[in-house]
């Protein structure tokens, strides 16, 4: 019945509606709470693929973390997901009326623009005073509501940006290295807050990080990028080290975990990869743990 009505509305002006309608229905059918879904997506700039062949999906209540070295296409991938960049290859589907909260990697506010944190919070939509106060308190900067953003430290401004994205109660929260410049205890608190937000509101979260560090205990799916998807899975699968997880998950406040990922392959300009043995392939199909060295260092409480 519904199908009929929708179809009627489309067929007057659009001949491609049947195919698109079928695809949309398919999408709705197999997308239990799907917020955004990328298929084989890639973006190229001046002849070079920034990232290529990325499959990614974020559902309601799911935290997906993108990790990878500098220039591996983490930010680019996130921007494709939320429509800031259009893919040159592949497809992206977003839930209709998807409400996004975005914390970009770098925001600089020109000093001629007078902007308090309070005003920053209301930048993309109206908010109640109480909502602002609550969000600022959650990230630990309630006392700075009236401070000019240009006078904040890097960590304080970063917290303000996270608070702004949270306060608008998005369906999908996209955080591009949200803890940069934030001190270590604040870092853990912010990640816990992010999970709390997910638990409370059921939003989906796409998180970007240099490496796993403290993130992994809060993450459902990890996608490791290096211009393409190197490996993916639950954190447990990505790092098959129960000890690591145990140390990390239960004693986050006292333990520093180091995780290194040595890439044994080079990404070529056309998006393919040169593997360690010199052969060239479309993807590196090697399981992740082969190209990875794990090192766990425990810092015992100084007391």
């Amino acid at each position, binding site marked *: 019945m519904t199908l009929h009505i929708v179809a009627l509305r489309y067929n007057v002006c659009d001949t491609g509606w049947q195919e698109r309608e079928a695809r949309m229905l398919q999408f709705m059918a197999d997308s239990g709470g799907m917020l955004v879904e990328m298929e084989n997506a890639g973006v190229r700039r001046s002849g070079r693929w920034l990232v290529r062949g990325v499959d990614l999906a974020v559902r309601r209540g799911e935290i997906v973390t993108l990790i990878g070295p500098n220039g591996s296409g983490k930010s680019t991938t996130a921007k494709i997901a939320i429509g800031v960049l259009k893919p040159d290859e592949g497809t992206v589907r977003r839930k209709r009326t998807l409400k996004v909260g975005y914390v970009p990697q770098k925001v600089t*506010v020109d000093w*001629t623009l007078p*902007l308090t944190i309070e005003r920053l919070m209301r930048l993309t939509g109206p908010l109640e005073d109480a909502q602002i106060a609550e969000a600022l308190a959650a990230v630990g900067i309630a006392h700075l509501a009236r401070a000019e953003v240009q006078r904040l430290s890097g960590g304080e401004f970063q917290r303000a940006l996270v608070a702004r994205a949270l306060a*608008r109660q998005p369906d999908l929260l996209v955080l591009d290295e949200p803890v940069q410049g934030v001190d270590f205890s604040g870092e853990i608190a912010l990640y816990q807050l992010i999970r709390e937000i997910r638990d409370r509101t059921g939003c989906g979260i796409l998180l970007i990080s240099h490496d796993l560090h403290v993130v992994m205990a809060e993450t459902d799916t990890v996608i490791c990028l290096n211009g393409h998807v190197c490996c993916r899975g639950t954190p447990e699968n990505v790092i098959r080290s129960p000890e690591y997880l145990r140390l990390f998950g239960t004693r986050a406040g006292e333990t520093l975990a180091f995780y290194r990922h040595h890439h044994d392959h080079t990404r070529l300009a056309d998006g393919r990869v040169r593997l360690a043995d010199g052969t060239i392939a479309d993807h590196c199909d090697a399981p992740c743990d082969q190209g990875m060295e794990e090192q766990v260092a425990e810092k015992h409480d100084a007391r």
Partner: protein
Amino acid sequence: MLDDFFTRALVAGIGLALVAGPLGCFVVWRRMAYFGDTMAHSALLGVALSFLFEINLMAGVFIIAALASLALLFLQRQGALSTDALLGILSHSTLALGLVMVAFMSWIRIDLMGFLFGDILAVSRLDIAMIYGGGALVLAVLAWLWRPLLTATVNPEIAEAEGLRPERARFVFMLLMAAIIAIAMKIVGILLITSLLIIPAAAGRRFAATPEIMAVAASIAGTLAVVGGLSASLHFDTPSGPSIVVAALCLFLVSLVRAPQWQRSE
């Protein structure tokens, strides 16, 4: 009341200052001073073409200024030269083209100085109607565009991600700039238009805690500059456009003196 030329000049100048304030704030925030200058310089080409094709002067200037900004966007996308160099090329070549064309049109007598430096004391009732009508339209569109444009100024990616369509905001802002240049040309002249956008906004920065307050402060500073400049012009028999700009400069300097802490915080 409007029979007196000085009153007409005052009314016209204040109308312009009220519109230029908020628009000028965006020019300052977005670092578009030179960009605005380029659009203004292209206005003379618009004047020449308006005379050639016998169309309304304001319409001609608006169209050419808008085209100049589009040309700049296109050349920026090509990426062959830096924006700075492109602005320099476009700015002076459109001005020179306009001057050359005017020289060729020997059958028309054009008060070149009036177009370059403004002739506020020759403002007619129709001009005033155009300023207030066009100005109200510009302010209404700017109010409608405020949130996306401000967000895009802070960070275009946030604006895009959160559905505010920054590209559209930017395009409409260009049209508003072209409109204010067309309106302002008669008052302060092509060469001084950008100063009326930038100086009051810069003077208002000191008194503002939010963007909205700064916009209002810029309008007030602009109004004061118009009143002060025109009065001085009448009193000392100085040219009106430059007198307004000098008055604005004085206001800006005063705002600097009163705010020694007004420095970059980094």
